[in-house]
């Protein structure tokens, strides 16, 4: 059963066609990597999945409903592209803030928050305001806040950016654990090797369209290919940014 569905979705900003007839679906319990060059339209698509941006045309269904409904977001854990959180809060306070917005009580938030803080490797930094955090530490905060209310669906915009090798391994473990509990994950990334390791499916976007959509086994083919080759074949040798 698919929990995310897009049909012929379009979105333009002024003269820029950011998403141009995008169609794909994500099945329950699968991890899907969302790849493409800079400016391919990944973030715009993710913003439409969260109801931040309304599509010009096409149909989007998330968790069986319209993404702009407030209740849809109860089942979504989201991690934004740039990890900027309220700099004067401490990580525990930030999680209480977001947990409260999700309708969780302090009794539910506190044990979950301390587990998550440990799990994303932020123990020892609990008493520091976020303005003193490094980029990778803020990225870890982003992971923790997305996991806080234990949602069904995870929509993560470049979650691996800025993470050190150990944190990447830990985050991959977290993703595997979420999958084992039947959670669905869609994440955008430029890290082809990470995507190949963890994904069930990959979608490659170019100029606002899905130009490749298949399982990681299909990527491997007869064993002579890998994701990097497939990506380069599709995107071409043109390494410049997309318009």
């Amino acid at each position: 059963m698919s929990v995310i569905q897009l049909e012929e979705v379009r979105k333009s900003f002024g003269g820029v066609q950011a998403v141009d007839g995008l169609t794909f679906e994500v099945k329950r319990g699968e991890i899907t990597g969302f790849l493409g060059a800079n400016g391919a339209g990944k973030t715009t698509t993710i913003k439409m999945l969260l109801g931040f941006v309304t599509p010009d045309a096409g149909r989007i269904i998330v968790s069986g409903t319209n993404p702009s409904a407030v209740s849809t977001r109860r089942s979504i854990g989201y991690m934004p592209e740039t990890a900027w959180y309220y700099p004067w809060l401490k990580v525990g306070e930030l999680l209480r803030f977001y947990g409260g917005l999700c309708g969780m009580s302090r009794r539910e938030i506190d044990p979950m928050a301390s587990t998550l803080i440990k799990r994303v490797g932020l123990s020892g930094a609990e008493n520091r305001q976020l303005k003193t955090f490094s980029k990778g530490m803020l990225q870890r905060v982003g992971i923790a806040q997305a996991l806080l209310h234990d949602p069904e669906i995870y929509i993560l915009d470049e979650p691996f950016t800025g993470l050190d090798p150990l944190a990447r391994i830990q985050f991959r473990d977290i993703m595997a654990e979420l999958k084992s509990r039947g959670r669905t994950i869609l994440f955008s990334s430029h890290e082809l090797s990470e995507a190949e390791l963890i994904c069930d499916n990959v979608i490659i976007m170019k100029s606002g369209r899905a130009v490749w959509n298949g399982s990681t086994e299909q990527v491997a083919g007869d064993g002579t290919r890998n994701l990097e080759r497939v990506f380069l074949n599709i995107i071409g040798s043109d390494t410049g940014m997309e318009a």
Partner: protein
Amino acid sequence: MSLIARQMNVLIRASLLELYRRKDLVVVFILGAVLLMPLAFATPFGFSGAHIYFNEMALLMVWFFSVFITLGVSTRMFPYEFEKRTIYPLLAKPVSRGTVVLGRYLGALSASISALVLFYAAYIILCGVRQHVWFSEVLVQAFVLHVGLLMVITAIGLTGSLLLTISANVTITLLIVFGMLLFGAKLPELADQQSLAGKIALYIAYAVAPHTEFFDLRQRLVHGWPAISWGVCAVVMAYAAAYSTACLFVADLLLRRKKL
């Protein structure tokens, strides 16, 4: 606790934490208190109305600093959310934009009121030390109406912040707040001296602009005049609530239309 109550609760707490952890506002705070305190102990110039003069100075400062802090909190909340992109994880949570507007409003208001309490405490100490008057009914009414004023200013500042840049917003709000304070009561009189077009314009301004002059009990306080009726207070507070609600409806509309 219901979902909306929980959401309000965390939005208010976060605003209070912001006010007290952000250095610039704390500086205004301390500056206000530091400027007020010496007035309590300064020696009079030797003329009979000296205590009235000091009283007036002190109240003017309480007004100035409280308006400043209120604008500092309310006009920056949303621009900051957009600039720092915290608006994305915020709106990704199951919270409606209307709740965010109301929660931010109540948050900014509680932060401003908490500052106001400290300023009034300083003022009470001043009056107590100088005039040995620690409490009066007018003082309570002045405080209540001052809260009403902050309700209106917070609503205007918050709504303006979804439309204008911070500096434009602060400038315009200050002009409206102090312009109405000085000329609000005289507008109908002024209108009657104008040609028809001017008359209509001034009457519209009189109807739409926030009547900050309704909230001003400084003269009564300074001269020790008797308290006003609590019924009038209630009407003025109802006006503050209605005016703020209208502003917040506009703010909700603006936030819904805002490009993310």
